[in-house]
């Protein structure tokens, strides 16, 4: 640290995006990145509770989980997994473009990421509608006949579908929140707010989007692929 006299605010040239309580842009970026990771750790705990509930009920009612899982649309689930992986690639390319200071490709990759996110949510909507049509939404009108479950075996199927809607719904909510954030970042990129020295917001938005991808990477096999071989 230099003395107070040489670093008096405004007395020396510094990057306009460097806030004055940080010594340098890398230090500022490191703090921001760490903060984002702490937020993601909190998100892991948030989803972790649902994964723990899933673990318990799957252990207790394995048969109902297998029968319920088979009613999910495997091709649509697999396509959505691929769509989300594609969107992670386009996001990584967007972050890369911003890191090397290419404005237009940054905007294009980010908009492509949003489009793929939209495709994912569209497919998810089709899947949700199918569950409503087949009375597989937990509640009064839930019917387990199509799952070939009767009597007391039918009740745990509602637990599977409650977890299905809670987990995929919370995941989709994260995407619904992520899309306007990416659009805002794309708008900032379009306005020329980022440079190879400063593009932390693009980078952190990327971290969020990739995290959402990881949640789906676990949801897909756990919800769609139970007991498919029977």
């Amino acid at each position: 640290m230099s003395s107070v006299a040489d670093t008096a605010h405004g007395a020396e040239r510094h990057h306009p995006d460097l806030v004055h309580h940080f010594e340098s842009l890398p230090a500022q970026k490191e703090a921001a990145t760490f903060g984002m990771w702490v937020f993601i750790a909190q998100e892991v705990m948030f989803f972790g509770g649902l994964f723990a509930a899933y673990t318990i009920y799957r252990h207790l009612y394995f048969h109902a989980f297998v029968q319920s899982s088979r009613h999910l649309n495997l091709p649509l689930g697999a396509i959505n997994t691929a769509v989300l992986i594609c969107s992670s690639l386009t996001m990584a390319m967007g972050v890369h473009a911003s890191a090397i200071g290419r404005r237009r490709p940054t905007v294009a990759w980010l908009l492509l990421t949003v489009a793929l996110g939209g495709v994912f949510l569209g497919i998810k909507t089709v899947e949700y509608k199918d569950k409503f049509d087949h009375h597989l939404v937990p509640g009064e009108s839930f019917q387990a006949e199509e799952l070939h479950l009767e009597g007391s075996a039918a009740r745990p199927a509602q637990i599977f579908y409650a977890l299905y809607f809670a987990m995929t719904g919370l995941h989709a909510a994260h995407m619904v929140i992520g899309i306007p954030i990416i659009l805002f970042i794309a708008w900032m990129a379009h306005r020329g707010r980022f440079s190879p020295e400063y593009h932390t917001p693009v980078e952190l938005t990327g971290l969020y989007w990739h995290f959402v991808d990881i949640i789906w990477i676990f949801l897909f096999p756990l919800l769609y692929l139970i007991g498919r071989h029977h």
Partner: protein
Amino acid sequence: MSSSEHIVSPVVYVGVFLALIVLTGLTVFASTVDLGLWNTPVALLIAVTKAVLVVLFFMHVKYSSRLVSLAVGAAMLWLLLLIAGVIADYVSRGWVGSPGT
């Protein structure tokens, strides 16, 4: 000014992307084969492999500071404790008789 950032080549991103797509196909295929008790561990192993690829390359943890690795590791440790605790509880129920059961 010098940047502390490591620029990852797009070739690496495309390679990771292809690996993720292949692993997705593999997990769908593996679910159709009867592996007995091993279906779930195999599905989870593939999912963990995919997640590690995303974390290391797309999320740049391979090129980040140890502080970031610590945050990632702490999150994983706590999640593991939660799930392991739950499994240990439910799996071991009935091993020892308890009054009233």
